[in-house]
């Protein structure tokens, strides 16, 4: 039975230069007891649709046409009436549990406040109801935790509290906007299980907004695919994921890194690059050919790093061990993956390898030289040249005040001050070409580029010094899947042609499986195990690895 019906919904943003359609004639129906997944890349309008249902569109946007029918009520009839339905008939879960709770009120106060706003209950009744709710969402010791403040809960627990807040007025529709994006894999699966359980138990209609196809595959009954404000395809999850009709859906599905096998390249349906091999020839000529000897390029021995949060005394009582006795080697020419959840110390290791900070103890050897003990700047520069890094956030890794060509020129002129202008320009163009950007891009500023293009600029800058080791710290986690596939393809090609050694850091197991030859698993600063990729995925030895593999959302689960 159709419970929520969205008819021809359009949302416009009136901008200075043009009108942007965030959603255009969207028709969606949701039944009770069903989870509808709403997927799309950033800017596709999936959150806009979610917000439009409850009329939470920010200025200057507005719902320009269409209706939203809940049961048999048209809730968009007037803007006042919608207030009654928010929280009451419709519950909301937001992405970031850190900011969706008020930090100065206890969890209990927030629950009671919400309940009393919508239901006529006494304080005592409201309290009992809240405690039951907290129990229902899986918070142990709910009576005692009732009086705790949000900061006393972990991220996953907080998201449970947010869910209990959304449920406290017995809504019939639940809108969850990226409910697990800010959470680690292990917590993500718990929250998704909870949402699934509640949907069945309370016979809710749920709209699950997400960019993650794996989450959709594991939770949603039906899925709606959106692209730049339009609804591309809607149907049963299994049908859409296994047999997509539209081109866009096909490319979206093929961009998702498979979890069960290793593929050589991602298939990009929308545009296939045929000329790729030729592109990199120019830069290859500049690259001094190195023979690959099967030796260890990087050796890390008993690495420790502790962060002191005590400013005045330097005792180690308060220090946090970010990296705890980690040792591994990276062979020349291989891709080594480091995986772990947030706080596992993987970025810290990367930053020590590129010498952004010094380890507390332990050594890092690069090409059999201990780089952590180098004092002289000129010695250090030799290694700076050979180790480069690509960062996670493409928006903060480029200086917005410099033109792209100046950004790329910086490392070149620094390490080769005598280079002539013509040579410099040619080199910059070759680099831009090798990351598949046009020559004209050089004269633009970073803000004119999209996230994926910025990441390409970052790669070009890193390649400018002709490094041997490229440290990639979550290079694609800020990007959409289709862009991620392109960037991963690019990195693979570059590695193949330039004989790069790559240290690939990620929290995303499927991505690591596609990219790496060997993988190290980190947990709370300790290295759990290191093994060859296929071995790790097929027969993991460490308990933690098994747990991670079991919990990761699998798009393939749809086949079972």
């Amino acid at each position, binding site marked *: 039975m159709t419970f929520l019906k969205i008819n021809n919904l359009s949302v416009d943003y009136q901008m200075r230069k043009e009108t942007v359609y965030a959603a255009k004639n969207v028709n969606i129906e949701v039944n009770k007891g069903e989870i509808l997944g709403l997927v799309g890349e950033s800017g596709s309008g999936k959150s806009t649709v979610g917000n439009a249902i409850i009329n939470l569109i920010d200025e200057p946007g507005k719902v320009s046409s269409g209706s939203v029918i809940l049961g048999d009520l048209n809730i968009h009839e007037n803007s006042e009436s919608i207030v009654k339905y928010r929280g009451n008939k419709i519950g909301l879960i937001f992405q970031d549990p850190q900011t969706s709770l008020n930090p100065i009120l206890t969890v209990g106060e927030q629950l009671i406040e919400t309940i009393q706003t919508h239901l006529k209950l006494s304080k005592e009744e409201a309290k009992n109801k809240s405690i039951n709710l907290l129990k229902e969402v899986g918070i142990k010791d709910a009576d005692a935790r009732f009086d705790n403040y949000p900061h006393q809960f972990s991220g996953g627990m907080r998201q449970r509290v947010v869910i209990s807040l959304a449920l406290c007025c017995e809504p019939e529709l639940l809108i969850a906007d990226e409910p697990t994006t800010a959470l680690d894999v292990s917590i993500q699966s718990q929250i998704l299980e909870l949402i699934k359980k509640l949907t069945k138990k309370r016979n809710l209609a749920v709209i699950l907004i997400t960019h993650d196809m794996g989450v959709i595959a594991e939770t949603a009954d039906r899925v709606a695919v959106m692209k730049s404000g339009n609804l591309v395809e809607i149907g049963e999850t299994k049908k859409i994921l296994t047999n997509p009709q539209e081109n866009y859906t096909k490319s979206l599905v093929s961009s998702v890194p498979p979890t069960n096998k290793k593929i050589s390249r991602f298939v990009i349906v929308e545009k296939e690059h045929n000329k790729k091999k030729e592109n990199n020839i120019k830069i290859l000529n500049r690259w001094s050919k190195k023979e690959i000897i099967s030796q260890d390029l990087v050796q890390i021995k008993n690495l420790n790093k502790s962060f002191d949060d005590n400013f005045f005394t330097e005792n180690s009582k308060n220090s946090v061990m970010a990296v705890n006795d980690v040792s591994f080697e990276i062979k020349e020419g291989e891709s080594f993956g480091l995986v772990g959840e947030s706080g596992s110390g993987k970025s810290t290791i990367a930053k020590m390898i590129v010498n952004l900070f010094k380890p507390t103890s332990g050594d890092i050897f690069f090409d059999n030289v201990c780089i952590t003990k180098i004092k002289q700047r000129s010695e250090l520069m030799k290694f700076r040249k050979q180790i480069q890094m690509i960062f996670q956030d493409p928006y903060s890794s480029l200086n917005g005040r410099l033109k792209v060509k100046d950004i790329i020129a910086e490392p070149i002129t620094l390490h080769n001050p005598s280079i002539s202008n013509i040579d410099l320009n040619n080199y910059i163009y070759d680099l831009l070409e090798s990351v598949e950007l046009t020559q004209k891009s050089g004269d633009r500023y970073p803000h004119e*580029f999209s996230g994926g293009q910025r990441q390409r600029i970052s790669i070009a800058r890193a390649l400018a010094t002709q490094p041997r080791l490229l440290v990639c710290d979550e290079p694609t986690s800020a990007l959409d899947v289709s862009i991620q596939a392109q960037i991963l393809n690019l990195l693979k090609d570059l590695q193949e042609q330039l004989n790069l050694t790559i240290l690939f850091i990620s929290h995303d197991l499927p991505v690591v499986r596609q990219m790496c030859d060997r993988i190290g698993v980190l947990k709370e600063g300790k290295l759990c195990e290191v093994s060859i990729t296929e071995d790790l995925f097929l027969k993991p030895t460490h308990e933690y690895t098994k747990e991670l593999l079991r919990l990761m959302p699998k798009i393939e689960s749809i086949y079972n």
Partner: protein
Amino acid sequence: MQQVDNKTLSTWERVKDSDIYHSFIKSPTAIVSSTILFIIFFCSFFVELVTPYNPFDPSSLSLMDAFTPPSWTEDGLAKFILGTDGQGRDMLSTILYGCRISLIVGFSAIIFSLILGVGLGLTAGFFGGKYEMIVMRLTDVQLTVPSILMALLVDGIARGLISREMHDEMAIYVLIFAIGISEWPQFARVSRAATLVEKNKDYVSASTIIGVSNIIIMFKHILPNILRPVLVIGTIGLALAILAESTLSFLGVGVPPTTPSLGTLIRLGNDFLFSGEWWITFFPAIFLVILAFSINLLGDWMRDTLNPKLKK
């Protein structure tokens, strides 16, 4: 190949396309205040071209013209629009000459404190540690001393050190130093805070990994990125510096009466206020108010426009 957009914009097209330009032409406050400021700046710096009189050329003055009221009053003369002072100098010309001195002192003082404040704030934020602690405690101490007292103190010391003959010549430099030294802490604080944010961004790490030296990172990468907030408070600081100059000159410790600034003119006119010659003090005062008010309005608009958090 990734296509972005085929045409490359010229600098002027970029400016015309920017949000700042659009916010400017949509804000009447910004247009009015910048027009007023443009007229004031132009008339002050090209005062020789604008006015027919040179109030500092004694041969052109006639005591017969002294105390002529403004032209629209009963005894006024058409050739002295705002009247004359006790020595027969045309008020309007004198004000414009005085305004030039005020602006020169104000601008120089603010540039001096910008260089000092941003330099200290940037290095403090970047290097951190004990150096940062010392600099920031210095600014705290500086902030406990009212800026006008600080300026009086500097002026007093300078008077003690410099001989009487040299004093009139040196007065303007002492004044610039005195005002500049009392305004740098706010620039240091703002630029340190902004540096702390910027230096943890990945583009700074990227430059470090490439091997760029700290000095270049500070000036090529961080400095341009922290200039926005600094420029905003710099604009409001300019109004404060001009007012501080006028206050000091009014108190008689600023520029000497031979090269009067707006503050000096107000002080000189003050003596005549109760004998009925109100225009001698009134016009410089109202001119000063308009000048400071326009700068502040422009500064407010800049703050609203350049701060992304306040954008609607």
